[in-house]
């Protein structure tokens, strides 16, 4: 925010201020327009779409939302709330991915930020290289491995798959974050008698909290939004995650766009809330320069 700190307290020409607001308002319109369309479609009661400028639902209704949320399935004699299970699957898989991802990445990222060791440069380069390989090439062997482990139709298998993308990214993110925390902090703690590990846990981790939160959010999102792997790995309706359910609304015989939009709205909500909660950290956590000890 200090970029123009010297302007503070001075009168800004109104025309400049108006221009800034205009630019930003246009950008906001650009950002919101498609989202508003999804919302309008989700609440729209008429079946015939038409070219309109303003995304206002015609004949507003909650039917689509209700239809998406209220799916059930009979198992034996009991009736299962299918959507509830699928929502739970999505949340469990995504939260587990986030936890596994940062759990594995935090110590590794710390070592990469603070220690000098044989193979460090090479390891980092390999890690970056894995990000350049289109996922399609790795999918087949990964699938066979999961089968060998008997994890094909399970949440655990899905978490393992998602961890493959979450871990390398988390390592990069957190390494940058740890690097920007002044070494003095740990050294001071170690002078006071703490071991390296204690200094890491008690001093560095709290200082890196924004970055860790953001990294966990990304891992969560990547798992929460993924549907190609999930659609193939999961063969039981009560194991599906929400994006798989969503994808099935736009089948070939009848594309239920309204139901898709309603589902999209529900699926997007938790991520939006998380983003809103974490948005302060987002700025600080994404750029190493932002985290100051």
């Amino acid at each position, binding site marked *: 925010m*200090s*970029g*123009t700190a*010297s*302007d*503070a307290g001075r009168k800004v020409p109104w025309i400049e*201020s108006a221009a800034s607001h205009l630019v*930003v308002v246009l*950008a*906001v319109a650009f*950002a919101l327009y*498609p*989202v508003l369309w999804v919302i309008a479609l989700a609440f729209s009661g008429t*079946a015939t779409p038409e*070219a309109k400028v303003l995304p206002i639902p015609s004949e507003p209704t909650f039917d689509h939302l209700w239809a998406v949320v209220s799916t059930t399935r009979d198992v034996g004699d009991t009736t299962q709330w299918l959507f509830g299970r699928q929502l739970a699957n999505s949340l469990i898989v995504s939260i587990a991915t986030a936890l596994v991802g940062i759990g*594995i990445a935090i*110590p*590794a990222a710390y*070592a990469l930020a603070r220690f000098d*060791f044989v193979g460090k440069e090479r*390891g980092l380069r*390999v890690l970056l290289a894995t990000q*350049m*390989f*289109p996922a*399609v*090439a*790795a999918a*087949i*062997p*990964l*699938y*066979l491995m999961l*089968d060998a482990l008997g994890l*094909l139709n399970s949440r655990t298998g899905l978490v393992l798959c998602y961890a*493959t993308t979450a*871990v*390398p990214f988390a*390592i*990069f993110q957190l390494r*940058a974050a740890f690097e920007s925390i002044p070494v003095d902090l740990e050294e001071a703690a170690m002078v006071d008698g703490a071991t390296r590990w204690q200094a890491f846990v008690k001093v560095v981790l709290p200082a890196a909290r924004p970055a860790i939160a953001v990294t966990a959010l990304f891992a969560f*999102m990547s798992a929460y*939004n993924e549907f*190609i792997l999930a*659609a193939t790995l999961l*063969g*039981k309706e009560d194991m599906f995650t929400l*994006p798989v359910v*969503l*994808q099935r609304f736009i*089948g*070939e*015989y009848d594309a239920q766009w309204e139901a898709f939009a309603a589902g*999209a709205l529900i699926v997007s909500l938790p991520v*939006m809330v998380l*983003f809103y909660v974490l*948005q302060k950290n987002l700025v600080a956590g*994404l*750029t190493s*320069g932002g985290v100051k000890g």
Partner: protein
Amino acid sequence: MTAAPLDLRSRAAGRLLGAALGVSALLVAAPASADDAPIQLWHAYRGAEEDALNALLARHREAGGPPVETLAVPYDAFGSKLGSSIPLGEGPDLYIDSHERLGDYRVRGIVAPVGDAFAGPEGYRAKAVEAVTLDGDIWGLPLSQKCVALFVNKALLKEVPDTLEGIAALQPELPEGVFALAYEAQGAYAHAAILGAFGGSLLGPDDSFGFVGEPAVRSLDFVQSLIDRGAVPSDADGALVTNLFRAGKAATAISGPWLAADLAQSDVDYRVVVLPTIDAAGGAPMRPLLTVEAVMLSPQGAARPEVRALAELLAGPEAAALRQEKARTLTARSDVPLPPGDELLAAFAAQAEVATPMPTAPAMRATWEPANRAIKAFLRGELDAAAATEGARKRFDDVRRPPPPPANPTPLLVVVGLGLLYLAYSMVRAARSGELRSNLKRSLPAYRYITHAVITVGLLVIVPLVVGAATSLWAGRPETGHYVGLANFVDILTARGGPLLATGSFYLVLLVTLLWTISNVVMHLALGVSLGLILSRPTMKLRGLYRVLLIIPWAVPNYVTALSWKGMFHRQFGAVTGVIEWMNATFGTSVEPIAWFAHFSTAFTANLATNIWLGFPFMMVVTLGALTSVPADVLEAAEVDGATRWQRMWRVTLPIIRPTLLPAVVLGAIWTFNMFNVVFLVSGGEPDGTTDILVSEAYRWAFTREAQYGYAAAYAVLIFLMLFTVTRVGEWRAKVREERELAAAKAAQAASGGAH
């Protein structure tokens, strides 16, 4: 919205891992399934058809049958899901699918003959039995038949002319904005009915491409004449046909039973009749493709008597009657009468009699993409009918070309061996120098922090990648799994013998990919950095609110975004068209609605707009973060020195935030280079595959062009090599510059030191 060819042009969803089949079939013998396990039944039904199936299964259960678990699998993911599960002994015991996939399923070993479940052809319609018979064996029990017929809006049309020309001739009498006929003119599936009237077929004799020659040319010219008269919308897809007919904007429509399901909730008064004849084809009737839905058995299911009994029950007369009554599906049985007075079913039954069963040969799958593209290129006016279909034949032959001959694996073994030797040698040398040992000792504490990460990344990321990359040295198709050396790479890099810059050649796609990556990164940076700069101004009001709103695109799942943008660019009812119409009405301009996906420039723009939307918030947030590290005193010093605000931004702020932005830009460029979702979901490569980027091209080779996984893997390896080289060169140049700057700084220091 057509039934059959959709699996060929659909989303990649779910098919990604269908690839597992080829490899796994070799590795894993199907384990015997537990006999007491519930029977697994897969289907693609929805709505009334699903209800009918469940009612049947409930009866089966009440009668003391073994428990059955069902799973509704999306139609377009069906094949890949079967392929990835059955060879591993997972998946269904029996499944309900379209007969035309049988040929492919048989080659892949995921379907078995039904054996004693088929008591004999009595009771079935001859065409249906013919459709499920391959080389004398019965591979499925026919359930129902589906084909397109003519839907007629009763309010708009009292009498239905007998000929297609007659229907088109009604156009002048119809109200403004109403088409005489709506059908999916751009799709080969619907066109096949017209082609059939002219005596042609999509698949020729001996698995050759059939959509060439006189029938193909005449059928295309005929369609063009209908469009020229304004009787048929030229750019209708399945959804538009449904919408036009439902809204009373089409007097007739060519569609299948699925349209009837869509119309159930609307108040359109319609009836269904047999498709008309075509005078231009000598009065021959239109011949649509017939799909027979059949219950098929997986190899493990076929071994279980109770599964065969269930299949027989599902295909039996009682079940057929129930389906007909509950879901109004046309039965494939001849011994079950049509419900009296059901005109719709009667019309479809009559239509099925003149329909042609879809060929089951695996080569049929390869006809759709070239045929679709030929029809689109022709209707856009880019090519005449002869050139378009001839080009399609070339494409078909290109995809169907035999795999490269097996190569001698010795060079590979020698290279790998030498590599291992060199590795061992350098390790021994390093170990003997002694320096390594002390270094290793020093590294021990660090290893304690990273061991688990090394193991996970190694097992889950690196091993699959290496194995995946290695498949690029094997033949394209899974069933011909032999080692071919570098033949796949040679094929790609020589554009398979064609001109190097032909459509779909590696080099042209690479150029498009570069254009795509550069324009995206530039736009992301421009938008992200300017918004970041504006939002960081302390005098800016409502900063927090703006920031929250601008981050929203990032939070929405990107496939949702991609699909909603695709909808916004729809020519008929997209929001962009709405904006154009509003402008025309307000400002008196006369801009035509744009067919966004008919031209490279507009389709590319649509993709670009979507991806800019997705990506700019990331850059904006990174900029905001980077700006916090700009020290205020430096800016103040610059101001004292008389720098204008513009100069301060360009000379001070931007250079300071550059190092922070750089990693984000590199990562963003890599992501964009491989951004599959947007390209695939928004333009889908339209028009004619020109907007495809390398990743989506690789996906096409793997999933729509005869499962040439080796070939697709070679694309992946090339993508990797290019990205890797570029980043290495970039790193190296940055290092050189850094050293030069360091040297310059030292020299300056020395000079100033000398002055004192």
